[in-house]
């Protein structure tokens, strides 16, 4: 069953097309990785899902209803969002950052506290040590973990990840990719993950959507992507092959 559907969706600013006629469905429980170079339209596609922007042509349906027809505040609260550098509020403690959306949704304080403590334990940041800290008192990797916990807090059906590990060192990045896979197995959320890193895409995706200059040029599982003959896919696969250790 599709959770998100792009129906000929396009987005243009000042007559310049950023995304062209995108038709794509995202099914429940899958991890779709939007792969592409800088400026290929992948972040634009992601932001169309939670109504951060609305399509200038076509439609984007979430839960069967066009985003343009939805209450955008409610829509955004129902979708978890993780961005590069985590986007945590610098003046909120870890606890307040994670409990933000449940608080906006009117959860009781005790329920929020239980949820925050549980999520902190699941991301290996014990509440007693980390709940009262400010984001500046955390490492980059810890901030991203808190960003993921915040996205999960209100138990959304969909999680969006906009190059969340892009600013991290390779070791922390690998660590968080493993954590992502562990959390995916645990929470079974529908996830849309933006990256320009083909290795990351191959590792995390159940399906890859390759965008090139605003147009979808490949849509399929990673093993099919590996056999793709599209020149843009080949360009990414060359990167993958170059990165392989010499055997």
């Amino acid at each position, binding site marked *: 069953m599709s959770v998100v559907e792009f129906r000929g969706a396009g987005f243009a600013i000042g007559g310049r097309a950023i995304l062209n006629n995108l038709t794509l469905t995202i099914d429940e429980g899958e991890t779709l990785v939007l792969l592409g170079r800088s400026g290929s339209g992948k972040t634009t596609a992601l932001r169309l899902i939670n109504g951060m922007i609305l399509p200038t042509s076509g439609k984007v349906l979430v839960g069967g209803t066009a985003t343009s027809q939805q209450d955008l505040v409610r829509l955004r609260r129902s979708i978890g969002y993780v961005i590069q550098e985590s*986007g945590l509020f610098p003046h909120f403690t870890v606890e307040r950052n994670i409990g933000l959306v449940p608080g*906006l949704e009117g959860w009781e304080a005790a329920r929020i506290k239980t949820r925050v403590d549980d999520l902190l334990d699941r991301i290996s940041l014990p509440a007693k040590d980390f709940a009262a800290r400010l984001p500046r008192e955390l490492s980059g990797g810890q901030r991203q973990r808190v960003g993921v916990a915040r996205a999960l807090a209100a138990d959304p059906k969909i999680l969006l990840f906009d190059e969340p590990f892009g600013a991290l060192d390779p070791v922390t990045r690998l660590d968080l990719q493993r954590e992502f896979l562990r959390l995916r197995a645990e929470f079974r959320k529908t996830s849309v993950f933006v990256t320009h890193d083909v290795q990351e895409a191959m590792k995390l995706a159940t399906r890859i959507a390759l965008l090139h200059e605003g147009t979808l040029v490949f849509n399929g599982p990673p093993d099919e992507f590996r056999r793709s003959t599209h020149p843009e896919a080949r360009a990414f696969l060359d990167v993958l092959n170059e990165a392989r250790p010499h055997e």
Partner: protein
Amino acid sequence: MLSDLLQDVLDEGLQLLGEHLVLVLSSILIAAAIAIPLGVAVAGSARWRGVALGIANIGQTIPSLALFGFLIPIPFIGGIGQHTAIIALVVYALLPILRNTVTGILGVDPAVRDSAIAMGMTRGQILRMVELPLAAPTIISGLRIATVTTVGTATIAAAIGAGGLGVFIFRGIASVDKVQILAGAVPAALLALGADGALGWLERRWAAR
């Protein structure tokens, strides 16, 4: 006899200090009530930001004594006395508060604002929970500058019958009495230093949060 004289001077000094505080506090409160919401409203628009800052800037470029003079003949808002002085002091205090409010709001990291929108915060929630708390040290800095400036400018208000510590200064100048001049100037300077220290402390405390 001497003690009666001292008591009279002290009584008058306290009364003038009280009047000075009323002039400063009411001017700053009114200016803040205008400039902070205005700064928040215009921060997002380069055009309206330019208009608002331009008007506030014009107000501040008029020499203080001339501004008091301009206001006196204006019906309803002018005349001799405290309310005319307060209007002039508000005009002076607007620019630093407005400018710092705009700077503070524009200084909020766009990624944090974006994140707030993505979390499903309403415009009011973003302003109340994210933008204003993060802009607060800059806004307090504007209030500090405005307050210190107003403490000084308020001494000139005595020239239009608004009272305050300027009464001692003007009377001292007219009678070439250094003691009277100092009786007005020293408390005014201490008041300015006190306001600077207190608001500077508040600014640092907020920034450290």
